[in-house]
């Protein structure tokens, strides 16, 4: 079983978690001013990389907090987790030593 390091609770079994999509997708501050294309971009378009991805997870059956997670979508290896609200991590640090 995958152990996911919750930034609050420490390493916990994956069964306690729910996936919650790509992280750092900011809602437009004023939706009335966006074009249809910009709104569609925000709603539907995600980066979906083969490789390192920053995504949101929720420790639903634990502390119930949302947090961010850097995961390699090829190996399923979790490289880092950090609290929601903290700045987006620089992916360069993972690309060198990732595989």
């Amino acid at each position, binding site marked *: 079983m995958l152990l996911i390091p919750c930034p*609050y*609770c420490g390493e*916990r*079994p994956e069964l*306690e978690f729910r996936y919650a999509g790509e992280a750092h997708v900011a809602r437009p501050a004023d939706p009335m001013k966006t074009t249809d294309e910009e709104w569609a971009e925000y709603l539907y378009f995600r980066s979906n990389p083969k490789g390192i991805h920053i995504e949101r997870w929720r420790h639903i*059956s*634990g*502390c*119930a*907090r949302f947090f961010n997670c850097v995961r390699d979508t090829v190996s399923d290896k979790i490289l880092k987790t950090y609290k929601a609200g903290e700045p987006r991590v620089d992916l360069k640090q993972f690309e060198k030593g990732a595989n």
Partner: protein
Amino acid sequence: MVELKVTRRSAFEGLHAIGVSGKVSATPSALATRFSFRGDHEAAQRASKAFGVTLPLALLKAETNGTRTAISLGPDEWLLIAEDGAAQLLADEIEKALGTHFHSLVDISHRNTGFDVSGAEAATFLATGNPLDLHISAFPVGMATRTIFSKAEIVLWRKSADTFHVEIWRSFLPFMWGLLEEAAHEL
């Protein structure tokens, strides 16, 4: 005029007793008052005085004093357990202590039910459905957390080396109880 007659039924009604002599037994807890309390650390400190037990600020901890227990489930969330019938009194006291300080206090007395699992094989018994490491070194006395048992969400609190308290939504109880009955056959 409609006459309402409401009686409270134990969630354990109709369930078989679970016990394996010398190894493990599951014992329903007495009816209790329960609250879900949310707020910041300041709110928790104020509620502690009214509740009579310190709400732990560190995560995954239980503090207990007689009939009252406070468990930190998340950084701003606590489960409060108290003696049956204390809901109104406690709500009033906590509201008074908090004043206008931002918080939420929800009575979940009838949503949850609880039982103790005790005996030399208690950890092994619970491990049949719970994926956490329940060894005393990884899950020490006084530790408590929300987790799962098979597909049901529970709160697990280690009261002593060989006694755990389980809190579970009452509608999930027959599901968990059935699994524990099966597990008892295999101990």
